[in-house]
């Protein structure tokens, strides 16, 4: 898990200095703060732990559901594959940028037909964006200090790949 989480703040305060790039555009993150001041948010995001405990209830509500998975999650150990079509956002959180497990996890999710937003968060660096994108990520949470043009360029580092990709 990232240092940020270790600090122990459940409110994900760190997100204020983050920007979200989705489908090659700078966007607002609809999940951010959506739960503030409301019982029934339109966008609901949960941890893997919460998902495991409250799966039934989470699926009955009308909200757009987001789940955050650590990059080292084993897809076959977490009860998720049957519900991929009911989930709108899966965030994969990298604790270090050299943890390649998140790349495979993303590729597997796409392989199993997940079509929602697949977001890379945590310790990723710009120089990985193209590979992340080719593994199926279509959204990236990055430090607000990064220059958006450089980000968009990094996403286009290569015009083609030798391998099948998403």
């Amino acid at each position, binding site marked *: 898990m990232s240092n940020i989480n270790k600090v122990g703040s459940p409110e994900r305060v760190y997100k204020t200095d983050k920007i979200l790039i989705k489908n090659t555009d700078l966007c607002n993150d609809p999940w951010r703060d959506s739960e503030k001041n409301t019982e029934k948010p339109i966008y609901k995001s949960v941890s893997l732990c919460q998902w495991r405990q409250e799966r039934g209830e989470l699926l009955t509500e009308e909200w757009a559901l987001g789940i955050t998975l650590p990059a*080292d999650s084993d897809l076959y150990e977490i009860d998720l594959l049957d519900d991929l079509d009911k989930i709108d956002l899966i965030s994969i959180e990298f604790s270090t940028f*050299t943890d*390649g497990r998140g790349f495979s996890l993303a590729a597997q999710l796409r392989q199993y037909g997940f079509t929602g937003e697949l977001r890379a968060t945590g310790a990723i660096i710009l*120089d990985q964006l193209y590979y992340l994108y*080719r593994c199926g990520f279509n959204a990236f949470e990055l430090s607000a200090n990064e220059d958006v043009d450089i980000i968009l360029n990094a996403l286009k580092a*290569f015009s083609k790949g*030798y*391998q099948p990709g998403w």
Partner: protein
Amino acid sequence: MYVYNDIDKQLLRERVTQFRDQTQRFLKGNLSDDAFLPLRLQNGLYIQRLAPMLRVAVPYGMLSSTQLRKLASISRDYDKGYCHITTRQNIQFNWPKLETIPELLKELSEVEMHTIQTSGNCIRNVTSDPLAGVAADEIIDPRPYCELVRQWSTLHPEFAFLPRKFKIAISGATQDRASIQFHDIGLQILENEHGRGFRVFVGGGLGRTPIKASLLRDFLPERDLLSYLCAILRIYNQQGRRDNKYKARLKILVRATGIESFAEKIEIEWLRIRDHYPELQEEAINNMQNYFSSPNYQTLDVKTVEGELNRLTTDLLEPSQRAFKRWLTRNTGEHKIPGYRTVTLSLKPTGIPAGDITDRQLQAVADLADRYSFGEVRTTQQQNIVLADVASSDLLELWLAAKQYGFTSANIGTMTDITCCPGGDFCALANAKSIPVAEAIQRRFDDMDYVYDLGELSLKISGCMNACAHHSISHIGILGVDKKGAEFYQIMLGGSAGDIAKPTVGKVIGPSFSAADIPEAIAIILDVYVDKRIEGESFIEVISRLGLRPFKDALYPARAVTLKSNSTEKTLGVNI
């Protein structure tokens, strides 16, 4: 040889641009050391003891004369006038300046070369048989498959941050000249009633825990090659250890899991992947094979040519004829086409670090290749260069020309054809120097008649446990160790990789020696061999017949006495 298409060229240009940008950001302080590290490693750039070291990929060892000339000019313009052939068939520059590397990469890209994935925790350059396509014992040419795997693994988005490095080797001959069972994945091409496919070995490796690979699958149809590789890599990526870099290689995962459960995991993952994965189409394979079709061999009058060679090398020999004859015996080999030979240019003259080659020599190799071998050469695991397609009628002329450049030391396959890593003179990871030890051995054994009499004998020296020289699969292996800050050397005997049926890891013979004592220790070992051999037995055959005992007794006489007296023989063979 494979020729880049527009896509290959485009990708290479993009990679050069990407790395130029990364280097500039690093030099300006906008990219941290930690972030730059894996990025530069994936571009073959190490920061070494004295300067950066840049490793250039030579896919499965093939080089064209155009590429050789470019390497010559780069050695001159960016380095100190020489480069180094590694034991993984690659080329290393030892002294380039960081600021100039983006430009160097651009020059390399002009001749379809690069440094992509030559280091770092990713899929490394695919290696193969240096005699691919010409070996008399070849069943199927591995190069088209090597190139398909090279492309598949190049810039692979999913496998750029593996637990550790990952090496794939492919062979298509009866004899294994690529040591495939000492790679993370070893592929042996074969043909049977189901068509063409691969025997897949997995989890081999050298390093501090040398392990022979296990058989993962007896037959994999060729169409499934890439999806199957993907399954192995994915399981490794997700389940290989990341907490301890010494336990992070695939071999450790395979051993910890057990080959049967590992095979089961791969099978399950593969079945999940296979239907989503494009098959390797016959057409794609055929297209690739076209790049490696045979060159335009002349029809030689074999009888006349061989008659002439015979005449040159029998009766009343002048000294120079004798030298030619030795070279012919040691440095040329059988070819699948009658009248043709393979020729190994030796990069092991006494006193030159193994595998080092100057700009002038690179140029000369290019000229020799153009004149005598269809403009192509191959680098070898033993750090030499092979001209694969030489007409026998050209051999004398070639020998005379190669002699001027110091390529004709007639020692290929003998004990002075020493494979040696850069060791303590260059490498930041070394425990001990290796180059001076190699030289001392070459000087001690300068009587070539004695060396020839010993016959086929491999001797390899690594400066540390990383085993870059593959000492643990050498008949005689020497390993640099650190003993309280002093450089010492451990000797292993009996390793070998060439026989696909029984590749063997060598065994440590006993306590280590100082550098000064190594030549004498080797001399003692060789005396034992000469003494014990029965008519025509090779060094390795004597070891498999007698074990290490007689060698130990001769090397450690005092111990032999004490040990015999209290019969605690088991304590030997452990490094003290």
